[in-house]
């Protein structure tokens, strides 16, 4: 049997080589299908790897707490809010918190102006502890201080993308920018952090929390986020549980009722990213299997033509002693080799395409092709070859030698 397979592979390769251009066109469907799946996988895997890297740089022990309103309540106009009081409760009653800080996002206008230059940025009110929680460090000047908050000073720390967007001088310290109608003095410039999931972390403006509250007005309604960093000797899981029970208690949530807040850990964010990438992969997998199906039909079609063309050859082989399985294997292996070659070319082309795309989108991580994707693509194209080769091969094997010899 092994002997037969080797001989069949030899003759299959000879036959594919003899019809070079036709073989290429036949297998093009498989090439395109496999190339597209490998390109997409290489991009998403590259993305996943780089996101994972950045999340771990972020610190796996920082938690974000935000208000959560179920959709039904939102429709009814109710809105859960997290207030500075909640922050105070956590600070007082939860152990194992290294630092904690409120975050207040600008809700009205996130426009900033410097001279005649205007831009939009992410503007957040926060405190001194955010430096530690969010791992933000200044390259020049200083970070927000506690006294900035106590006296509601109009000062800002900016990322270097903001400096570039506003055409600020290289050292922007002590320049004034306009934020929501008020003038803020720049006291610090952050170290660049780069992109995370296409979101520029350097396009950011930090102002004191209390200042942000005052310029937004309506302080009773303030909805804040709380970020905290778990201290190195404490367990993230138990801190999460403690925060949850303290908040439920403080906000008067009955047992059995849902939390009206949510606690996010970097692992959860990573899971979300994984879910999104998984979904994308499944959807694309579906599309690609359709294109492989079409490619397979192309192979079946050309194999049927090939069987008809070679009817006389099949007759000759049968006359000189070829058994059914000799002929069957010869055509089956030809179909499999054809589609696996397509798969191989597809993997190479897809990898090239992925690298090209990754290289041409600024800030996009380099493409990586995991081994399982290559094996899967080759295995699947081999399977397609068997599936669509079996019918033509069976037809060839069942030819009557006399009829086949007489065929013109």
């Amino acid at each position, binding site marked *: 049997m092994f*002997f*037969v397979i080797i*001989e069949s592979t030899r003759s299959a390769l*000879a*036959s594919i080589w*003899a019809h070079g251009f036709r073989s290429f066109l036949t297998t093009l469907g498989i090439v395109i299908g496999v190339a597209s799946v490998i390109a997409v996988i290489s991009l998403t895997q590259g993305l996943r790897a780089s996101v994972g890297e950045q999340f771990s740089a972020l610190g796996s022990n920082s938690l974000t707490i935000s208000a959560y309103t179920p959709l039904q309540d939102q429709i009814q106009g109710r809105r859960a809010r997290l207030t500075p009081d909640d922050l105070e409760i956590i600070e007082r009653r939860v152990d194992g918190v290294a630092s904690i800080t409120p975050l207040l996002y600008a809700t009205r206008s996130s426009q900033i102006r410097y001279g005649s230059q205007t831009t939009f940025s992410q503007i957040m009110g926060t405190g001194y502890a955010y430096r530690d929680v969010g791992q933000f460090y200044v390259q020049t000047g200083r970070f927000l201080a506690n006294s900035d908050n106590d006296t509601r000073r109009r000062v800002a720390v900016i990322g270097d993308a903001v400096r570039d967007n506003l055409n600020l001088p290289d050292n922007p310290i002590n320049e004034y920018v306009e934020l929501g109608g008020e003038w803020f003095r720049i006291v610090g410039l952050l170290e660049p952090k780069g992109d995370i999931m296409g979101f520029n972390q350097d396009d950011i403006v930090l102002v004191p929390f209390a200042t942000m509250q005052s310029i937004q007005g309506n302080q009773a309604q303030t909805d804040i986020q709380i970020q905290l960093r778990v201290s190195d000797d404490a367990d993230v899981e138990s801190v999460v549980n403690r925060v949850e029970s303290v908040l439920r208690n403080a906000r008067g949530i009955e047992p059995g009722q849902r939390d009206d807040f949510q606690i996010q850990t970097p692992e959860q964010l990573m899971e979300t990213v994984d879910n999104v990438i998984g979904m994308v992969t499944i959807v694309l997998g579906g599309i690609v299997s359709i294109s492989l199906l079409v490619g397979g039909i192309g192979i079946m079609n050309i194999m049927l033509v090939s069987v008809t063309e070679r009817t*006389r*050859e099949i*007759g*000759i*082989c*049968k*006359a*000189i*002693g*070829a*058994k*059914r399985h*000799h002929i069957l294997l010869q055509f089956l292996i030809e179909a499999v080799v054809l589609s696996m070659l397509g798969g191989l070319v597809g993997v190479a082309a897809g990898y090239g395409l992925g690298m090209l795309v990754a290289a041409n989108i600024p800030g996009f991580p380099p493409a990586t092709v995991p081994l399982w994707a290559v094996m899967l693509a080759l295995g699947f194209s081999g399977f397609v070859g068997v599936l669509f080769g079996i019918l033509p091969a069976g037809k060839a094997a069942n030819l009557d*030698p*006399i009829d086949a*010899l007489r065929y013109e």
Partner: protein
Amino acid sequence: MALIELQDITKLYEMGDQTVRALDGISIRIEKNDYVAFIGSSGSGKSTMLNILGCLDRPTSGRYHLNEQNVENLTPNELAGIRNHEIGFIFQSFNLLPRATALYNVMQPLIYRNVGWSRRKAMAMEALRRVNLAERVNHLPNQLSGGQRQRVAIARALVTNPSILLADEPTGNLDSRTTTEIMQLFDELHREGHTLILVTHEDEIARHCKRIVEMKDGRIHRDVPTEPADKQVSN
């Protein structure tokens, strides 16, 4: 026991609603080292006879004994094995594989009996030397003349060392000079001890053989040894 023994072989074909008796009760014995020509007009049943003898087809009824085995009831796969081991075919239109060189064509039947590469090549080279084609082994069939192609086909038939060589109009596509060459080769093979069966409609060819079987309407009409060659010339 004879090399080939046919007993009361019939072959029926359904042609629409009527049945054609291609062979109608054939009984014949062919001994080892026999040199037989089957002649007859078209429709006489000689092609069907060749298909049955060559194990390409099975008789409707009757017994066929080839080299000490009964072959009339074998499955298609078993018949393929018999064809590979016992029979060497030589066709009118050569029937070489067009994309394979002379050497590969001759090696082909050995694949089906699992002979390894180097041994296969050596055996094929030897068969090609036997038909004086040793220096054209790497040519494709369309780079060879008709006579050379037929000699490749003969080498392919010889390479498996079969019990019988079965030639169907072997010179039908050849000019007279090549015909003489090929017939000389057949005569030599006969002298070397091979058993040859030819199907032809040319008396010239048939006269090379030792025995002529004339077929008519699916029956054996005449089965005679050829007269000595000198008498034929005086005719």
